[in-house]
């Protein structure tokens, strides 16, 4: 009897667990809680991309992809629990989609030698690969975003914004405060006046901030928001009749969720992005054929083509391409997390590569190196078309102000290295 039970238990474990040869990718997702509306499309895009690789190509270079999904609820403690409970599965890379979770995982993944990719979030100075060996934040980070916004404002003002007033409405948290230093440095360089308007979590009540904006009449408003704060801010901007084309959000304030509740009033609102939008790509035809039509979508299949779904897809694409790079480098298809780290550190995304994947111009071209884990800081500006209910890129990808950002990253990463006894090096 005992033998039978033991056999059954082993069989159950083998059936439930991934085959040893599979490439395992973790998906620390949040499909429940206050931020589920943002977590679901990202997770769906991430998982559907890998499902397509499995269904169409038989995985990555013949290795099936196994996804281990764990619900974090956008809660830092749960995120860390998810990491601890899934790292034994051999997950090649973690993408927690939360700055809070990322901060907690930085020392853990480094000591476990597992790479972590915080794409457009997390600790900005992790771009310095000499200090943050296992953390990657390509293709862009928060400070790039701040610079992209200012560069865009410069472009539409003929390169001169001295004397202009720019207000930053931000989530009063570590995340929301990220762009402040960069914007202050850029203010010194370009001569604009910066006003800071913090909004306490969760951001349902912003009357004071928007009354101040109405009184002080800034020329531009930038926003670093998340969740309900975004929807309320867009609605308040509509209410006070702030010109929406002068209102620019970071990429986490640029999903359909953020603008649809405000209806037609949100027309013209701008958001930064580091990937392309919509579903007009050859890749989507395959996605429909192999994943949607066969009922294999990760969620309800109702998020395809949304900004956050595309972001999840893009994250998966970068992970898959890094895995291929690692396979080539190490001459084996069955890569380990340490090999994956090498692949990420040598990742090069070119237009030819993206076009071959059926996603032409889906993201900027960039090259990762040991020194530079953050790419080249390219991003673009998208604008909301309320009538068509779609985002459209209104600029090409352009680079952030490296002259300002490079010293800030060097300073912050050096401080981290000193605090943690890290000797920077490649």
């Amino acid at each position: 009897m005992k033998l039978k039970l033991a056999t059954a238990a082993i069989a159950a474990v083998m059936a439930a667990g991934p085959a040893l040869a599979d490439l395992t990718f973790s998906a620390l997702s949040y499909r429940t809680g206050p931020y589920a509306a943002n977590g679901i499309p990202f997770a769906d895009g991430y998982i559907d991309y890998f499902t397509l690789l499995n269904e169409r190509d038989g995985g990555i270079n013949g290795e099936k992809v196994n996804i281990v999904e764990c619900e974090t609820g956008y809660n830092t403690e749960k995120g860390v629990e998810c990491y601890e409970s899934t790292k034994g599965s051999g997950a090649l890379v973690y993408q927690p989609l939360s700055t809070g979770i990322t901060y907690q995982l930085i020392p853990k993944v480094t000591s476990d030698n597992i790479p972590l990719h915080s794409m457009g979030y997390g600790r900005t100075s992790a771009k310095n690969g000499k200090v943050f060996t296992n953390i990657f934040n390509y293709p862009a980070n928060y400070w790039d975003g701040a610079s992209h916004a200012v560069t865009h404002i410069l472009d539409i003002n003929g390169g001169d914004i001295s004397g202009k007033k720019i207000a930053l409405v931000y989530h009063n948290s570590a995340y929301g405060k990220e762009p402040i230093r960069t914007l202050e440095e850029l203010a010194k360089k370009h001569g604009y006046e910066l006003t800071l308007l913090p909004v306490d979590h969760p951001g349902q009540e912003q009357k004071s901030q928007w009354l101040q904006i109405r009184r002080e009449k800034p020329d531009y408003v930038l926003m670093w928001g998340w969740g309900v704060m975004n929807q309320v801010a867009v609605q308040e901007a509509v209410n006070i009749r702030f010109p929406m084309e002068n209102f620019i959000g970071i990429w986490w304030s640029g999903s359909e969720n953020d603008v649809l509740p405000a209806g037609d009033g949100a027309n013209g609102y701008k958001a930064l992005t580091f990937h392309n939008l919509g579903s007009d790509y050859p890749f989507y035809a395959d996605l429909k054929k192999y994943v949607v039509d066969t009922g294999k979508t990760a969620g309800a299949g109702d998020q395809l083509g949304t900004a956050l779904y595309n972001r999840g897809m893009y994250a998966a694409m970068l992970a898959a391409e890094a895995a291929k790079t690692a396979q080539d480098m190490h001459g084996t298809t069955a890569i380990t997390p340490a090999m994956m780290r090498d692949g990420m550190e040598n990742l090069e995304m070119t237009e030819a590569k993206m076009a071959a994947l059926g996603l032409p111009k889906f993201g900027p071209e960039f090259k990762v190196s040991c020194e530079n884990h953050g790419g080249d800081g390219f991003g673009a500006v998208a604008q909301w078309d309320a009538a068509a209910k779609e985002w459209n890129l209104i600029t090409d990808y352009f680079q952030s102000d490296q002259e300002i950002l490079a010293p800030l990253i060097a300073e912050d990463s050096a401080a981290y290295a000193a605090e943690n006894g890290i000797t920077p090096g490649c």
Partner: protein
Amino acid sequence: MPEQLIWGMEVFLNGLMAGVLYALVALGFVLIFKASGIFNYAQGVMALFAALTLVGIMEGQVPFSHLINAIFGTEVHHFGWHVPALLAILLTMVVMVAMAWVVNQLIFRHLVNQEPIILFMATIGLAYFLEGFGDMMWGSDIKKLDVGLPQGLNPFIDEVTYNIFGYGFFIDNLDVVATVVAALLVIVLVIFAQYSKQGRAMRAVADDHQAALSVGISLNFIWVMVWSLAGFVALVAGIMWGTKSGVQFSLSLIALKALPVLMLGGFTSIPGAIVGGLIIGVGEKVFEFAIGAPYLGGATEIWFAYVLALIFLVFRPQGLFGEKIIERV
């Protein structure tokens, strides 16, 4: 008139309007506490659930569609009809009454005469269950709620104040509507509680469950009625807040806005919820305008609301309008 003073007046008025919205949430807490001594932790989630149900009914969404599709392999999402706002509100109220009945039958009927902390714990469980249930029933995407309420600058107030001060005040039309609705709600609830048979029975139950039972008052009926009323208030709050931000799971956090209002206005007074809301709304907005933003870096509203409530609490622990409880040894 100095510019700062004029702007201060605008902030004051907006504080009053914000206070009304806070009071709408606080009213639901007061109703249940007044009748049963239960601090209903689930009040914010009830507002969310009511708003989710309203949007779901209006848009003809199939409840539990994700679950149905996952089990049966179907692709049903919508019935294909749109229900007019007024009818949808009535249908939502039916759902809230049904929910009140179920909550009473399954939970509170079994907890009569239990310690208040036990009842409080039960509402915590209810809150988490209801949040998950709402998610499963209607999905977790952000939904636009449009029941025809006006939003944006009120041109009349803008024009009048511009003619007087040379600066047009911003008052949101939605806040004006909320003020009218809250005023009507309070009048109706006060009349109901003070002068109707059921209202008096409700107060009797609040005073002493056993004594109320002994004179023939049906505890079950009163509790179902009170939870239904709280459900109605939650629906009103859900409509107002949901119109502002879209209906989404953060809506349940509006309960946080009600706590300082309750501390200040007292847990048992309907007018207290309104006055408390107004004081908190004005206090936090004026403080942010005069001190918070210029000297403290801003974002002072949330903590200042609690400081204000604590100050009142020190001098009047039962709140401004709460009943003073004297226990003789």
